[in-house]
């Protein structure tokens, strides 16, 4: 390969990354807010919006993965020790896994609780599970646990990005930023 190694993510990957980030953070906050609300039309509306956002996140993540399949991300900096590379790789794999598992668990939970997910109130997503209250309660716990797990990984992900930027002073953060055009020179 004589091509110069790219040091930045491409614009599509960057756009998808930040879109997914915004949807996930907002929808997480919405989920935390809504589940304690007393029953009201507002609550039913928010639950629907939360589900629509969850389906959107799922689709965006699928798109990201498909894009990534044909657009290799820039390599990690040479300066990173092997254990950090491994940790980063495992972290990213886990994050992708959770980005799929969280919406899927929410969808299954909705089915089991007897409230189908209808995307934007127009496109019914088939129920994979029959209505089963007890299973629904279990899936609610699963959805919550997966979300807490994802929150932890996201914090680790953001923390690692900041560590790269401020301590290691490499381009790991800037190459995913939409506005920074000049890559930093590592080492």
């Amino acid at each position, binding site marked *: 390969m004589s091509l110069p190694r790219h040091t930045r993510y491409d614009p599509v990957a960057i756009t998808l990354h930040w879109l997914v980030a915004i949807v996930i953070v907002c929808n997480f906050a919405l989920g935390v807010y809504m589940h304690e609300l*007393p*029953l*009201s*039309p507002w609550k*039913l*509306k928010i*639950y*629907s919006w939360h589900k629509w956002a969850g389906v959107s996140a799922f689709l965006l993540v699928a798109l990201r993965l498909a894009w990534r399949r044909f657009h290799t991300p820039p390599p990690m900096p040479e300066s990173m020790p092997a254990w950090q590379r491994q940790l980063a790789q495992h972290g990213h794999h886990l994050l992708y896994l959770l980005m799929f598992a969280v919406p899927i668990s929410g969808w299954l939970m909705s089915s089991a*609780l*007897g*409230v*189908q*997910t*209808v995307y934007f*109130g*127009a496109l*019914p997503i088939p129920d994979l599970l029959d*209505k089963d*209250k007890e299973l629904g309660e279990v899936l609610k716990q699963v959805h919550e646990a997966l979300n807490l797990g994802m929150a932890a990984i996201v914090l680790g992900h953001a923390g690692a990005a900041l560590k790269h930027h401020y301590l290691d002073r490499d381009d790991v953060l800037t190459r995913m930023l939409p506005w920074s055009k000049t890559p930093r020179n590592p080492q």
Partner: protein
Amino acid sequence: MKRSLLACLLAVTLPAAAGEYSGFAADQSRVSFVSTQMNVPVEGRFQRFGGEIHFDPATPTTGSARLEVELQSIDTGLEEADEEVASAEWFDIAKHPKAVFESSAVEALGDQTYRIRGTLTIKGTTREIATEARFEPGAIGAFSGSFKLMRSDYAIGEGMWSDTSVVADDIEIRYRIAAPAQ
């Protein structure tokens, strides 16, 4: 009392296959409903109801049905919703614990299908309704069918809940009402 004694005597003296159905078979009956929340159909049901049916397929127009649904026994599928619908804004169960259907006319449409007209009383409001039901004969006969009602007609879901863009106005009631053959 005299009437029921007479009914007992008749039941004993008449041959079993007289083809008349009367009474009520609660364990073979079902009353459920489908509401639409944010364009999502959600099914619920009532667990306790009672009634009385008299029906002879040979003379269907003389048939009659009375059904009482204990609203407290609602199972919306969500506990907080079960509590909510007991409130004054919904069923006001403290004042109106039952929904009552009373038939006024039965018309045979052929092919074991009947149009049943009658009055439905919920939350102090009585309205005429009509429903088409299919009859399955047997040792226990059952009418199955469905009809739609507008919850606003009965003031079910007032105040903030009157916004039908969240919980739609029309509610589908599905039923299977069974009675033993005499």
